[in-house]
C-alpha cells in the first residue's frame, strides 16, 4: 500500500468507528451546546457586549471541544486494546499520524459546523456575511489545532495524569493559532473582506505547515518503545 492509502485507511477506520458508535460526536456537540449556555450566563444578556466577545467565545468553544476530541484520539485505541494492532501498520509510521489527524480533523469540523449553526440561532449572528472567508479560517485554524493536538495526544497517551498534561502542553503552543483565528474571525464578522485578514490567514497557513511537518517528522519517535 502506498503512504496515502495507509493514511486514508487509518482515517477511514476512525471515521467508521465514529459513524457507528457516535461516541465522541454526540457528546462533543452536546458539550459545545452547554458551552454556549455557559458563555451566555457568564457574559450576561447585553447584546453589544456579546457581539464584541463573540469571536473569542466561538474559538474558545472550538478549543475546549477540540481538547476533548483530540485527547481521546489515542485513548480509544488503548481502551479497545487496539494500540498494538495499530502499530502493525506497515511502513512509515507517520501514516498513522496523518490518518489520525485527518480523522480528528473531520470530526472537529463537523462539530464546529454544528456549533456555528447554533451560534447563528442563539447569538443572532449573520454568518453569510462572513462567508467563504470564515470557512477558510475555520479549516486552517482547526488543521493547526488538530496537527499539534494529534502529536501531543499520542505523546500523553502513556503518561500518568494525561488528562491534565494534555491541555497543559497543548494550550501554550496553540496561542498563535488562537490569536490568528480570533482576529480573523472578528474582522470577518465586522464585514471586512478576506484581503483585510490575509496576514492572519498567512500566519495560520505557516503554522499549519510547521505543525504538520513537525508532526510527520517526530511521530516515529513518540511511538518507539
Amino acid at each position, binding site marked *: 500500500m502506498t503512504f496515502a492509502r495507509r493514511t486514508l485507511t487509518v482515517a477511514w477506520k476512525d471515521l467508521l468507528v465514529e459513524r457507528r458508535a457516535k461516541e465522541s460526536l454526540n457528546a462533543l456537540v452536546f458539550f459545545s451546546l452547554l458551552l454556549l449556555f455557559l458563555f451566555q450566563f457568564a457574559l450576561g444578556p447585553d447584546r453589544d457586549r456579546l457581539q464584541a466577545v463573540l469571536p473569542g467565545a466561538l474559538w474558545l468553544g472550538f478549543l475546549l471541544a477540540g481538547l476533548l476530541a483530540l485527547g481521546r484520539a489515542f485513548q480509544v485505541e488503548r481502551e479497545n486494546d487496539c494500540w498494538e494492532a495499530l502499530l502493525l501498520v506497515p511502513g512509515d509510521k507517520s501514516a498513522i499520524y496523518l490518518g489520525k489527524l485527518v480523522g480528528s480533523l473531520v470530526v472537529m469540523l463537523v462539530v464546529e459546523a454544528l456549533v456555528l449553526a447554533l451560534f447563528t440561532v442563539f447569538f443572532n449572528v449573520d454568518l453569510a456575511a462572513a462567508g467563504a472567508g470564515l470557512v477558510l479560517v475555520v479549516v486552517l485554524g482547526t488543521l493547526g489545532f488538530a496537527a*499539534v493536538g494529534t*502529536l*501531543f495526544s499520542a*505523546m500523553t497517551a*502513556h*503518561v*500518568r*495524569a494525561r488528562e491534565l*498534561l494534555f491541555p*497543559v*502542553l497543548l494550550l*501554550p*503552543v496553540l*496561542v*498563535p493559532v488562537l*490569536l*490568528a483565528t480570533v*482576529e480573523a474571525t472578528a474582522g470577518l464578522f465586522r464585514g471586512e473582506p478576506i484581503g483585510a485578514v490575509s*496576514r*492572519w490567514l498567512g*500566519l495560520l497557513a*505557516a*503554522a499549519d505547515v*510547521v*505543525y504538520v511537518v*513537525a508532526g510527520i517528522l*517526530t511521530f516515529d*519517535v*513518540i511511538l*518507539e*518503545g
Partner: protein
Amino acid sequence: MTRVLGWLAVVALASGLLVGFGIAPREMTQGNVQRIMYLHVPAVWVAYLAFAVGFAASVAYLVRRRPGADRLAHAASEVGVLFLGVNIATGAIWGKPTWGTWWTWDARLTSVSVVFVMYVAYLLLRQAVDDREQAARYGAVLAIVAALNIPLVHFSVFWWRTLHQPPSILKSGPSTMPDVILTALLVNFAALALLGAYFVAKRVGVLAAEAEALA
C-alpha cells in the same frame, strides 16, 4: 572545568555590578530604576540562547540518541525558564515605577510570557514521565515544537498588539544608546551568559549523577 566556569561567572558578575552601578551614569528621565535594564535585558538574551541550545541538543538527541544530549537539552531549557522568569520579574519591577503598572498586555510582555509558559509545560512533561528514555524522547519532540513555535508566537502577538494600539510607551527614551550604557549591558550579558553556562554544566552533572544512581 565547571568550577572554573563558576569562578569566571563570579568575577564577571562582580564587574557587571561595578559597571552597572559604579560606572554607568544615572539615567536622566528614569533615574536609578533604569539600572534594572542591566539585569533585565541580558537575562532574556541568555534565556533565548539557552532555548536555542535546548533545541539543538534535542535535535542532536533524536539523531544520535546519546543521553548526554538529552541532559544538555533538559538543563538548558530549565536554565532558560529561570532566566526568562528573572526577565519577566525584573520587567514588572521596572514597569511599576516607570509605566505605573506591574503588567500590561503589550506585545513583548505577552510574547515572552507565552514562551515562558510553553517551556514551563516542557518541564512539567519531563516531570510527569517516569521512564528516562521515554522522557528524553517526548521532551525532545516538545522542545523542537516549542522552538519552532517561537517565531509564530512573536509574529502573532506583535500583529495582535500593534494592530490595536500604537506602541506609545515602549518608544520613549533615546533611540541611540550611549556607549557606556551599551558597555554595561554587554558586560552584564557576558556575566549572565557565564552564570547560565555554569548552571547548565552543574545541572547536566546532577542529571548524570541521578541517572547513574537510578540505573
